């Protein structure tokens, strides 16, 4: 790719920093060039985040209908599966799957709730009331 053809479509990373890429200059030699983003990359990320938003909305509805515990909402919100959450909390995966049921979640002790809240980087009250603070 020629240095002048390096895409300059402003992305979310582009607002913070420009990315280095390698392109040819007028004499055909490779040099480092700065790019502020690329449409294809932006679209791919948008599609991925669109899917995640849908999963979060579906999880929220399930929680409000009392079909699942708030744990499900925060797992989707933090993009965690039970394996990652097990790593952060120290619970077994089968325990986490059990805690996804509202009945089991309501019986959790404060200590256990605190472990989940720490893993999601939120407060225990927010975990119970599914309140989200943008960070």
């Amino acid at each position, binding site marked *: 790719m020629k240095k002048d053809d390096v895409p300059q479509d402003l*992305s*979310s*990373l582009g*607002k*913070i*920093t*420009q*990315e*280095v*890429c*390698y392109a040819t200059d007028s004499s055909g030699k*490779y040099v*480092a060039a700065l790019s502020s983003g690329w449409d294809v990359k932006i679209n791919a*990320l948008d599609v*991925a*985040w669109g*899917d995640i938003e849908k999963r979060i909305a579906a999880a929220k509805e399930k929680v409000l209908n009392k079909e699942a515990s708030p744990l499900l909402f925060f797992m989707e919100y*933090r*993009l*965690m*599966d039970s*394996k*990652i959450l*097990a*790593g*952060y909390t120290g619970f077994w995966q089968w325990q986490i799957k059990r805690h996804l049921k509202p009945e089991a979640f309501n019986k959790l002790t404060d200590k256990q709730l605190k472990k989940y809240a720490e893993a999601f*980087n939120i407060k225990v009250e927010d975990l119970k009331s599914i309140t989200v603070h943008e960070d």
Partner: protein
Amino acid sequence: MKIEFEHHQAAHCESGVTSNLLRNSSGGKITEPLAFGIGAGLFFAYIPLIKINNGPAIAFRTMPGYIFNRTCKSLGIPVISKKFSSKEKAEAYLKECLHNGDPVGCQVGVYYLPYFPKEYRFHFNAHNLIVYGMDDDKYLISDPIMDTTHVMDSCQLERVRFAKGALAPKGHIYYPKHGAVITDETIKQAIKSGIKKMFIICLVFPAVSRGYRA
């Protein structure tokens, strides 16, 4: 304390960390593309059995840590690399390294990196950055993807160094041994070995999900 260290932006985190860490001993001769080449960083894998963020795992680079290790091995530089089970020991060791004047590379997870934009935060644990000093209780961070340096407090750094999930970093820390000298002759030899390794990875590798067959 602050170690003399020059931040240079790079296209990719691990080759950037490698070239930045080797800058002192090589006098700037090991640039990022050269580190990527000597470390045989190019790779392709498509593994539908491993799910990452609900999708199949697709990789376009080698396993984390390989570029740095291969580059240093080819150049004949001893590498010190450590993983930890205890968070306290990991931080104590990091402080000891900084005290000895060594900037160190750390493998981290990107999800809780404070300076990353929200759109780029996934549970991806093979990001690399350099810690090059301390200012009061803040760590000075040089992330090769970013154009400037950043600071992080010890809680934030601990969280990303002990991120969980696939390829968990476990506080992985690595740096080249102090005072190694890189001559033009060793670079020549290293380039040759890099090309050979790249050839084997791309054309000879037998699995169908990796190399050019993928």
